[in-house]
């Protein structure tokens, strides 16, 4: 019996290796419409991502609903008709009761906004439009990304 257990374990580990390989290499093929040149972060957005992490923005804000709940989700804040870069920078500069004032330079604010712009291009959240194609299943609406930064 224990020999069988070892075989099952070996089989699962092999399956896990193949599964991980597919996940780590999911650019292009498996991301479907979401993967194009525009899905790759620009150097400026990468700088913004660093600031996002260094300031621990995720303690309060979410991207795709993942993060803390002290502030709103920012996945699509840049494409929102009433929000966008000016709105975000106003919060960064002044702070509010819930959010501290940040002393970012103009270059840093631009980088942070660029990161949010490029995150915005990857998809939709919250999910306002989706289809239920199978009992309990949800098909997501994918965003088509144009090449280059906006």
């Amino acid at each position, binding site marked *: 019996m224990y020999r069988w257990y070892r075989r099952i374990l070996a089989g699962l580990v092999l399956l896990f290796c193949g599964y991980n390989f597919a996940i780590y290499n999911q650019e292009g093929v498996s991301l479907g419409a979401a993967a194009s040149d525009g899905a790759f972060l620009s150097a400026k957005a990468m700088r913004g991502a660093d600031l996002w992490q260094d300031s621990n923005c995720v303690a309060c804000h979410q991207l795709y609903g*993942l993060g803390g709940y002290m502030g709103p989700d920012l996945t699509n804040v840049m494409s929102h008709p009433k929000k966008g870069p000016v709105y975000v920078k106003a919060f960064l500069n002044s702070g509010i*009761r819930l959010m501290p004032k940040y002393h970012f330079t103009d270059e840093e604010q631009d980088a942070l906004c660029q990161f949010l712009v490029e995150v915005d291009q990857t998809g939709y959240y919250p999910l306002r439009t989706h289809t239920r194609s199978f009992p309990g299943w949800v098909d997501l609406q994918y965003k088509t990304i144009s090449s280059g930064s906006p």
Partner: protein
Amino acid sequence: MNRRIASGFILFGLLALCLGLLAGLLATVQIMWPPFLKPFLGFHQIRPLHVSCMVGWIVLVATGSVYAFGIRKQGLPRWAQRTAWVHLALFSVAAILIVFSYLGAFMGGREYLTFPPVLIIPILLGWGCFGFVFFKNRREKSPVPVYVWMWGTGIVFMVYHLIEAYLWVVPQIRILFIRDITVQWKAYGSFVGSWNMLVYGLAIYMMTRVKGDSKIAHSREAFFFYFLGLCNLMFGWAHHTYVIPTAPWIRVVAYVVSMTEWIVLFHLISGFIKTVSNEEVGAFRPVIRFLKAADIWIAMNLLMALGMSIPALHIFTHGTYITVAHAMGSTIGINTSILMGALFLLAIDLKPSEKKLHLKGFWLFNLSLAGFWLALISAGLIKVISVAKEPEILFSQLHQAMTPSYHSMALFGVGIMLAIFRIIWPLFSIFFHTFRATEVNSEEA
């Protein structure tokens, strides 16, 4: 020697628990009244402090318990003893630096591992030391009981997934945002699965000790549970990421696999509780009470988790306090109950004649946790309903609507904290004296 090293890890874990509870309470007060401590210790510092301490409590006590129950008692080679002490020293240095990094707002990591990335190096080296000692000196030889498989699996996968959680430092991974966030949450989901292997292994070990019957740990049912848990660890993580536009097959696999393991754990513990006799209860009463509590929390969380794993429901609960209720029910209700049981079992082993080892604060703990859990669910439901009625509702309006839930969370949070302090108070001195004892005295204890 392994009792001293175990006591070192457990004391360390108990300190992390106390600090984590305090940070959790401060964070709740800050949610209700944001100016509180804001200029000195912002929410972006308190939250990671709370999370790291609570993760530390689970991981450190699980590690200490495996040192106590899983490593052979006699004839442990000197290199293994030294390696175990190096493990404790590495974790201690990392923990102190992590706490100071939060207090000084030096971060740079990501959610749940917010500390500067370089601090993962001593943690990984510590896990390497643990694996080296465990695999070379495990107590149980062939046929190996299922809990030893679980502990070994937990150690190996913990190392793997901690490394995976830092793949973002590789620019080629990080540059594609969707892949990056997917790998990050894959690592976190499986990281939790890895510590669950350690903790659930302890639950099965406790059942064999109380019953005095090792058949439970060699049964086909137990191994079925182990492999199902392993499948969840490997493939079940993606229920966290249903809403991220990853490849559909990743989400389909998660949907099929997710959350089946608890059904079997519930079945195992329930079966054990039904068969345990009054005679067997005896000195193990505190251990059994915590196993029963864990069983009830598994049942409550199972229902919620299965619901949340259905994508059509998940899109409503995702990003709300219902997710937090699921996390708190798992980490406090299930993991903490099992770990408390393990601590009482080890305390009974160390001081069988200890008269003061009565369990106090048990009901306050469970009732406060139930209140806290319901308060979180109510906050989540308020968001779900408010957003359904008014999709463009302002965040400040949502925050205002959830205020009664926040007050309840603070009240029941205080209850949980007081109850835990009451439960662990008699344990502190036992583990402290064991840690300070000479090696000969420790082995005699």
